[in-house]
């Protein structure tokens, strides 16, 4: 007897392939550069949201996520302004953010629930304040202007259509990594830790270590994405990643859904362009945005991605239901 029904899912592969094709072809089909800009921001947001999703997978909520993006942005900006190649500094930025997260996580991940949320929030605030106060290094409130763009083999990624493929590639790589992580043993340990940490501990797993690893990976991704964004905009300031950015990543994650990678993608796809689409309503946009969030949380508390899962589960119940009836019939 097989434990899981191994059925091919051609529809899912086709859907994924189609989405990737559309994303790749975007520069040719977009009516103007603004759409490419929006798509680039979406790619960067997706990486940040996936980083947050990985931490949430292990059962913790990081309200200081923007702080790691800010650190990554400044590290990469400062190094590249001293002549380091941008392609190297974005990885250094991710590494620095990851190392800080590992150290901080080792200490504060003993806290659970609301206490961790508060400490992570404080960390995000401290990162912003440091960026403001360390005038000589960070340029204070003015930030750093003229961050050099990334160049790959001599091609300088200066314009929007030039940068977009890099952002898309990084976002897809992060997506693939997260998907693999969720299916790995470590991913299973993370999910188990989130659901019942005492029982997981009694299954021989060091739940503290699992959470530190998740926090390190997720925050490292945030640092990397923050660095990419800094080179894209050629600018970073303490206002680039404040508490409100952390909140918006969390909103995308919750509205999209926390169960798989699909939720993060949907959350980013819906919420990145939404403020722009609502701009035509002139002045009402914040009210409509807020109302849509409240409605989402009320009616699809597990995220928009859960709609697809509910539908699939319903089909499965119908199928197994008939199977059981057939089996038990004389």
């Amino acid at each position: 007897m097989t434990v899981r029904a191994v059925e091919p899912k051609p529809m899912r592969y086709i859907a994924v392939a189609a989405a990737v094709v559309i994303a790749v072809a975007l520069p040719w089909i977009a009516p103007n550069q603004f759409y490419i800009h929006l798509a680039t921001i979406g790619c960067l947001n997706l990486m940040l949201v996936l980083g947050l999703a990985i931490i949430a997978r292990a059962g913790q909520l990081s309200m200081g996520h923007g702080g790691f993006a800010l650190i990554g942005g400044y590290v990469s900006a400062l190094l590249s302004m001293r002549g380091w190649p941008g392609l190297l500094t974005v990885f250094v930025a991710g590494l620095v953010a990851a190392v800080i997260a590992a150290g901080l996580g080792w200490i504060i991940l003993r806290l659970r629930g609301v206490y961790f949320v508060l400490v992570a929030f404080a960390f995000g605030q401290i990162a912003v304040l440091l960026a403001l106060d360390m005038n000589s290094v960070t340029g204070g409130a003015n930030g750093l202007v003229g961050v050099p763009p990334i160049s790959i083999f001599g091609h300088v990624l200066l314009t929007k259509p030039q940068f977009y493929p890099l952002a898309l590639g990084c976002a897809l790589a992060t997506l693939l990594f997260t998907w693999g992580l969720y299916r790995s043993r470590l991913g299973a340990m993370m999910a188990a830790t989130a659901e019942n940490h005492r029982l997981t501990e009694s299954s021989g797993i060091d739940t503290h270590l699992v959470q530190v690893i998740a926090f390190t990976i997720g925050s490292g991704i945030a640092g990397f994405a923050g660095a990419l964004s800094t080179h894209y905009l050629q600018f970073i300031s303490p206002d680039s990643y404040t508490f409100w950015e952390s909140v918006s990543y969390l909103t995308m994650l919750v509205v999209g859904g926390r169960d798989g990678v699909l939720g993060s993608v949907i959350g980013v796809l819906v919420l990145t362009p939404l403020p722009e689409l609502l701009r035509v309503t002139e002045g009402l946009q914040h009210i409509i945005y807020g109302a849509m969030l409240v409605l989402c949380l009320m009616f699809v508390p597990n995220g928009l991605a859960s709609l697809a899962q509910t539908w699939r589960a319903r089909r499965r119940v119908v199928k197994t239901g008939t199977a059981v009836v057939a089996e038990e019939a004389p």
Partner: protein
Amino acid sequence: MSMLEVANLRRSFGGLVAVRDISFRVNEGDFLGLIGPNGAGKTTLFNLITGVLKPSAGSVRFLDQDISGQKANKTVRQGLSRTFQAATIYPEATVIENAIRGTFVSSRTGFWGGFFPSKWRAEAEEKAFQVLELFGLTRRVGLKARELAYGEQRRLGVAIALASDPKLLMLDEPVAGLNPEEAAELASVLRRVKTERGVTMVMVEHHMRTVMGLCNRIVVLDHGTLIAEGTPAEIVANPLVIEAYLGKEAVDA
């Protein structure tokens, strides 16, 4: 050979001494019952042995290694697994996923080998399935654990603990809240696990019929103190035990 050796174990919470200088041993092949009235310190003793709580004094030795105050996850890796009274399952995960999560320790795939999904999963699934078969849960593998009947949830809790291939399994009130038929069924499963897998067991339980039917030795606690130790027959006849459960007049009568 003694598998678990508890020596002068003590734990106090502020002024309250919940476990007072308890010493006993569990031999290989034992099915030891740990009984006592409510508040006797049974669960505290359990938590001290399995590393959920740190002892104030005394020592716990498992397979000739000192494990007192050691973190729970390390103790499990040495072969001492336990169940909980409540919250013994992952309610939102499927039954097979629940059992798979129990196999994390016993799996032969290393930590990094776990990054290749097909490799670790097939192995873990097979092992999980074997354990579920033992507990009669194979027809439920696709359901979420919270969708199971209460009795099945309790069985799943024991299955998760057993999936780690322990040498010593400690059960905290496994039949609590079960009806007589379910209790008898779980007892027979435990007996089978014991003979088939050679797992030594310790059980905290109030259900006397289960304890008397399964255990070869019994330890009785009252107010944090060990008041009696012996075979079921000796324990039933022990006046101290009767006094602890029924009061002094019952002994005099």
